[in-house]
């Protein structure tokens, strides 16, 4: 059942996380000046960037967070898995497939910036064969099978379209008290640049 226009995917609190290819190469501290520079140079034109919050002292936590008006970008290590998470806040960036596409666009744009950042010397590369999709909205999207069933068609289709493959596996990966999370595994791994250009074309 697709729920385009209502249900869990009408929540503005959608998130997508990309995992880094080499977690050992990540040093959270070095991201602090990088993200401050993003603010200074206004490198995320779709966001009003406000500040950088550091939680590097907390194990498996939110890591370094770029706080924006209507989204947060985390370089987090939740559940021990290091990666870049885009999490929309409050503003509904479309519903159903559009919400998913816009979330992919946001995270891929930020990922490309990190991959290309001269200070980081190419140590930050992102895997695309696995990612995490989530909805931080316990009212509209409790972490259970019914939400998964409702979200699945749109999410699966969006991933197929983006990765240009039918080899897509989705798995509800969150417990009942956690925010709703789906692990997405894809049998293809185009690079970030390629995915970004595809999704940019799709939402244009």
């Amino acid at each position, binding site marked *: 059942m697709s729920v385009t226009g209502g249900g869990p995917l009408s929540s503005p609190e959608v998130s997508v996380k990309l995992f880094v290819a080499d977690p050992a190469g990540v040093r959270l501290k070095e991201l602090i000046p990088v993200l401050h520079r993003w603010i200074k140079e206004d490198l995320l034109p779709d966001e009003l960037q406000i500040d950088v919050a550091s939680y590097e002292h907390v194990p498996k936590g939110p890591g370094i967070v770029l706080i924006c008006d209507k989204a947060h970008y985390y370089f987090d290590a939740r559940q021990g898995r290091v990666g870049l998470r885009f999490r929309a806040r409050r503003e509904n960036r479309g519903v159903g497939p559009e919400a998913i596409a816009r979330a992919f666009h946001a995270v891929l744009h930020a990922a490309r910036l990190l991959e290309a950042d001269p200070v980081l010397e190419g140590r930050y590369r992102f895997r695309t064969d696995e990612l995490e999709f989530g909805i931080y909205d316990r009212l509209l999207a409790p972490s259970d099978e019914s939400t998964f069933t409702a979200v699945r068609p749109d999410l699966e289709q969006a991933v197929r379209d983006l990765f240009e493959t039918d080899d897509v596996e989705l798995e509800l990966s969150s417990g009942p008290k*956690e925010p709703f999370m789906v692990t997405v595994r894809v049998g293809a791994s185009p690079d970030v640049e390629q995915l970004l250009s595809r999704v940019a074309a799709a939402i244009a």
Partner: protein
Amino acid sequence: MSDRTWAEELEGQIPEQLGREIEIFATQMELRRRDEVDERLFAETRLRRGVYGQRYDNGHRHDGVTNRQLAYGEHPTKGPETVWDAPGMVRIKIPYGALTTEQMDVLAALAEDYSDGISHVTTRQDIQLHFVHIDDTPDLMRRLAAVDITTREACGNSVRNVTACPLAGVCKTESFDVSPYADALMRFLLGHPDVQDFGRKFKPALSGCAHEACGLVNMHDLGLVAKTRVVDGKEQRGFAFYVGGGLGAIPHPAQLVSDFVTEDEILPLSQAVSRVFARLGEKQNRGRARVKFLVAKLGIEEFRRLVFEEREALPHDPRWTEYMETLPEYAEKPARKGAALDLGDKALSKAFLAWHKTNVRPQRQPGYAVATVKLPLGDITSDQFRALADVAREFCGDNVRLTVEQNILLRWVSEADLPALHAALEAIDLAAPGAETISDITACPGTDTCKLGIASSRGLAAELTRHVPQLDDGGNGALKGLRIKASGCFNSCGQHHVADLGFYGISRKKGGRLVPHFQVVLGGKWIENGGSFGLATLAIPSKNIPEVVRRVTGRFLAEREPDESFTAFIERLGKVEVKSFLQDLTEVPSYEADPSYYSDWGDPREYTMDDYGEGECAGEIVPLVEFGLQASEREVFEAQLYLDSGDATRAKEMAYRAMLTAAKALVKTEFLDVTDDPEHIVTEFRSRFHETKRFHDRFAGPKFASYLFQAHEVGGNGGRPEQARERVEEAQLFIEAAYACYEKMATTPGTTGVTA
């Protein structure tokens, strides 16, 4: 499905009063959005709901080179120079730090849904969530209310969280468990009419004994220390009763009001203190508006006389002693039966033994222990908080307390379970040893999120956490018990005055550039309820503070007398000598030689004071009458909504109530004890404002007052349904007349009573 709201979802789960308060706040937000409530009044209103400002909420931020405008959307402000859309902080009151596992689950969820996935434990046993949008706060409050938590009066000029020793009830040295008394005091003062007209905040604390640190009574506005005495062969419970303690820029030790106040008198006496503070406390100069200044101004003798005089005049309130009926039943329920642990067991790991040494203390009750979960900088992730709730369910039940050292205590753990508990905590990265030692550093939010922050207290604390383990005390443990505490400014939220090594943020200029510094405060006394305050010595650049710690602790180790405390050592050394051996660290290299001095810890931007803002700690000085008039406006707005929805009966009722609220607000300027009884309000209003013609309009005479009298005569919702619109319009006119009356009073000195 998509239209469902938290209000609907939680229907029947939210206590009626809490639910009503939240709806009122949501309406106040709506009125502010429409620009129908003054921004200053709304600011104090939201502060009293725990909705606080945060750095950069004036819509500007310095990026290290220039000050930039943050282009938020166009909305009315949520306070003076406070942008509606700017993220803010929500402070959640956790009375005496006591949490249930269900509450922990909810807090974890809220941090994820509305904040950034971190719950921050404060130095007053609160939880703070940062980067919260104000539009999310009513739902956040509803979800808290469903588990019996409120944010009411967590900020603003009101009674803040009632704190207490986190070991209360299990401590070996306490006179008795102060938890139920803290609970009673919290419930009695929360929203009490006598605590609504303070010029500044008011912080109460309770302690089970005089000699330990836990309650920190010496630095609180109102402090109660448990004690007992024998009267006619029977043990009697009571409290040493203190007022006027406080840290801030100028710390004041609390003064003794009475050496022994019996348990049945603590609530009325606290009420009497509140009345004296509300009546005589400073209202204009917020820098001198805490009760400590009033006590200093009057002298404790006169303050005491006024308090007891007020106490005698108080109308009786059955709540003063009602709570005592439940005292005999008050008890905590352990999850498991207590059993001893053999620490000589060879199977116990080194990691466990190290953790046990610093993080575990035996309870008064044999077979049970308290385990401290040491949180880095007071932060816990939502995943950890949820997992910790499960750990608590398994090992200790709902016996969890937050501490003023920004940690979490698990109480009533069977000693035999400690190895399993340690393993469970290790699995969620919460088994760090060193709780309540030199490595357990306290810090307020500082420049990370606080508008008043001058230097990065959290950045410094994180840096020192890396340095402290390198300090070597040769195994004699002399350093272990020292406390390090850092505040981002002189306001002392990090409680630096009562630390062995305290630091507070300041700034200095070098070669035309600003350099973050910390003032070094040495030798404060943590024990004896924060027994004495440290010695301010020198302003040292932030980047040299780790070296300060190394030198000071090194000298202490080298020169201390046997069993000499750090406080005594610093006192013996003297300010001159301390200054002399730290003097070279005051030097700041030129920017060209070392630019790192010109940035703060954890923040690569070149340091500036441009982001320093108007603090909200002091709240807005809003006379009590304005809150009442604002409430009446909200009620007439709600009456209009009922009218629009076709509910004439409720519209009339609400319009009548709005007039009563406005009338009561005026009466309260002269007579604080006016009750909620409509007859009482109308009688007082008639004699004080109508018969004296003070409420008369210049042209319409008594017309507007007559609207109230007529509605009162027919009893609220009486009259024909078609009169509802008329009643709502009359209520609107009555409120306008009340404002006009108040304005006339305000221009006539001495006529607004409680605002003088």
